């Protein structure tokens, strides 16, 4: 699967503009997120799951970003989806890529994004009883937590 071929296939299947480059950025609507992941794995052959994270764009809402690679053909895809203002749910990629399990738990922990169909969604880095989601822009970095700080 040549990168150019992959780019053309993605642009035609999802009807979005895919810019050339390494990695190729594909941005879709949240309802096609799982379909995009499945397509990337099966058709484009990106079986290597690199990472999944989120970005807080303040008023514009959250955006989930994932990167998958096709190691044999050197195709790198950056999958993005903007969740929209106030939305904190997203489809989970775990049924497609097992590596998304811990990455999505971390997104839940840090941003409060609830992933549907995730087998085990709970906090991973912070304690289960922690209040707040730190990487949101509304959370201060030096939030006190008596008695330790």
């Amino acid at each position, binding site marked *: 699967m040549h990168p150019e071929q992959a780019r053309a296939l993605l642009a035609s299947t999802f009807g979005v503009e895919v810019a050339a480059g*390494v*990695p190729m950025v594909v941005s879709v609507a949240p309802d096609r997120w799982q379909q995009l992941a499945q397509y990337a794995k099966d058709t484009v052959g990106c*079986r*290597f*799951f*690199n*990472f999944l*994270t989120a*970005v*807080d764009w303040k008023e514009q809402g959250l955006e989930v*970003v994932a*990167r998958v690679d096709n*190691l044999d053909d*050197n195709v790198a895809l*950056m999958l993005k989806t903007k969740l929209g203002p106030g939305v904190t749910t997203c489809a989970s990629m775990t049924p497609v*890529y*097992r*590596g998304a*399990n*811990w990455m999505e738990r971390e997104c839940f922990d*840090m941003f409060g994004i609830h992933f549907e169909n995730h087998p085990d969604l709970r*906090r*991973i*880095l*912070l*304690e289960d009883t922690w209040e707040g989601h*730190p*990487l949101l822009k509304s*959370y201060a*970095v030096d939030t006190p937590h008596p008695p330790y700080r």
Partner: protein
Amino acid sequence: MLDVNKTTRVEMDWAGPERLQMNMGPQHPSAHGVFRAILGLQGETVVDVDAVIGYLHRCHEKLSETLTYAQYPSIASKTDYVAAMTSEFAYVMAAEAIGKFEVPRRAQYLRVIVAELQRVASHLLWLGTWCMDMGGALGGGATIFLYCIREREDVLDLFEALVGARLLYGFFQVGGTRYDIPDGWIETCRATIDRIDSRIDEYEQMLESNAFFIARTKGIGVVSRELALDVGISGPLLRGSGVNYDIRRNAPYSSYADFQFKVPVETAGDCFARYRVRMVEFREAISIVRQALDTLPAGPISSRPALKSVAQIRIPKGEAYARVEGPRGEVGSYIISDGSAKPYRMKWRGASFSNLAILPHIIPGHKVADVVAIMGSVDPVFGEVDR
């Protein structure tokens, strides 16, 4: 006096499946750091494992939004603190990718030399602690540990002469490196790596002729190629499972394209395969350092002016993901910048975080003693896992 004939013996029968939940707590003798594994045991066999991490969550990603591009590289070295050079490399490369800064050739060669020396030092620590975990501290296991730390101290001496610090450096800077090599460093470096090269042969022979080592590592912790790609592990774990992928060769960065080196691949996927991959990586790293020292170009070490204020480096709006082949795997830094002196969002792709995610898939079915061997061969560093 105890009358043996009058004592009663009670036979405890095995009344059925006996499920025990055992905590391998955040403080335990196998020297990997703060990791808690709650093992569900059936007898001696592990049935399921819940890996609890986050005991070293130091808020790197949130703090990076408050630190400038000049301030953060020293903090970046504290993610993978055993291989601090490659950690800083990822962050600085991402910043340079967004800002499209050129790095002079000499700085690129210095970066490669330092990254490969760091690989040697990190693998020495891996070998020492892994063998110590399998052999028991103070018992017989400390032998390889003490030898490896002795070699590692020589490499750290080189770093101390170059940078001033032994473990956590602030060597990388956006645009180049911060220090240049002092006089006499190249000769000491060559002597050190020659010595390490010969001694690694000794350790390899010592280990592979040891039946216990072979019994404890062959066939243990097998990671299939499918699982490896699906979970996203990288580095020696991926190459030990048959995937021929090394970022230095497949997506070369910073003058790695100028050097000839082999990329070891093993197909067995067990602890022994990962061990073989790392042992070959030792030799290849040493060979890269020799090639780089032979052809080190003269020139400036940074394309940016000397740093006079912390907010000096401004990067235009954009985003980039830069990846580095660290000793543990793919260390990456995804930076989204908004034009100011600080990043808008920095995601640290830690190699050990993805590598550790493989544990719930491969540990069930093994004995408790194998858990230690598997953990060692996965080689996590918790600064990277928890960030």
